[in-house]
């Protein structure tokens, strides 16, 4: 019985972890193909880096109920780095509020026969998206 409960708890944690990936990002190369960069990525929401080469388009998004602005910004930086970039320009930001049907689990059953039940509910989800471009700074350029 104790092992069953432990297994159930582990499964619930795994399911929770898999279902809670609330941040995502993607990149589309439209310039020179470079190897992914491990250098720090600088961001600006108002200026293109001077003398830098454009590498492609990037976006990052997240469910604002669980993802902070910093987390989504880090995902944006990762996308820039995946194109070999070390500078990112944020061209636009938008929050889209959508009503979605969400599944949830709850403890049910009696003390002797604990069970997990599944339900569904309608919630409003704010998804924040950053869209912009990746750049490679010119060698020796001071950001």
């Amino acid at each position: 019985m104790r092992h069953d409960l432990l297994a159930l708890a582990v499964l619930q944690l795994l399911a929770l972890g898999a279902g809670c990936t609330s941040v995502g990002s993607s990149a589309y190369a439209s310039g020179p193909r470079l190897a992914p960069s491990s250098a720090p990525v600088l961001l600006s929401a108002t200026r293109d880096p001077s003398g830098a080469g454009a590498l492609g388009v990037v976006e990052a998004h997240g469910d604002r109920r669980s993802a902070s602005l910093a987390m989504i910004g880090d995902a944006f930086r990762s996308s820039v780095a995946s194109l070999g970039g070390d500078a990112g320009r944020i061209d636009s930001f938008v929050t889209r509020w959508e009503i979605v049907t969400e599944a949830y689990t709850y403890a049910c059953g009696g003390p002797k026969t604990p069970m997990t039940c599944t339900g569904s509910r309608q919630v409003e989800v704010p998804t924040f998206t950053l869209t912009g471009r990746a750049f490679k700074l010119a060698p020796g350029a001071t950001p």
Partner: protein
Amino acid sequence: MKPSLVIAAALLLSGCATLRAEHMLTGRPLAPTAGEVQVVMEGAPVPGAFTEIAIVSATGTLMYASLPSVLDALKAEAAKVGGDAVIRVRYDRGANGATATGVAVRLAAQAVGRGDAAPGAAATF
């Protein structure tokens, strides 16, 4: 309706309603701003040169899902990182929530006048 029911309903409503603001630095934070923070909506002209500091965002739900609530929170967040203006402000409204997002900046004249970083010095690029 009984007053106790009204109070209970108000408590329930205020307990669920949230208003939160946060920022993501894209420049260097400056000393907090004590004065008024200007709001410049997306598409409106930006008043002169500026130093970029951070992207700021405020989200309100239920009773805080309104333009005044989220703009006040946005201005307070910008002031915390030293901004005296929030530019490119975008307002997105849902059924029960609202978000305002913009770029916190220090306008050039104020930056020089206060002896802070010169315009452009703290810019990311």
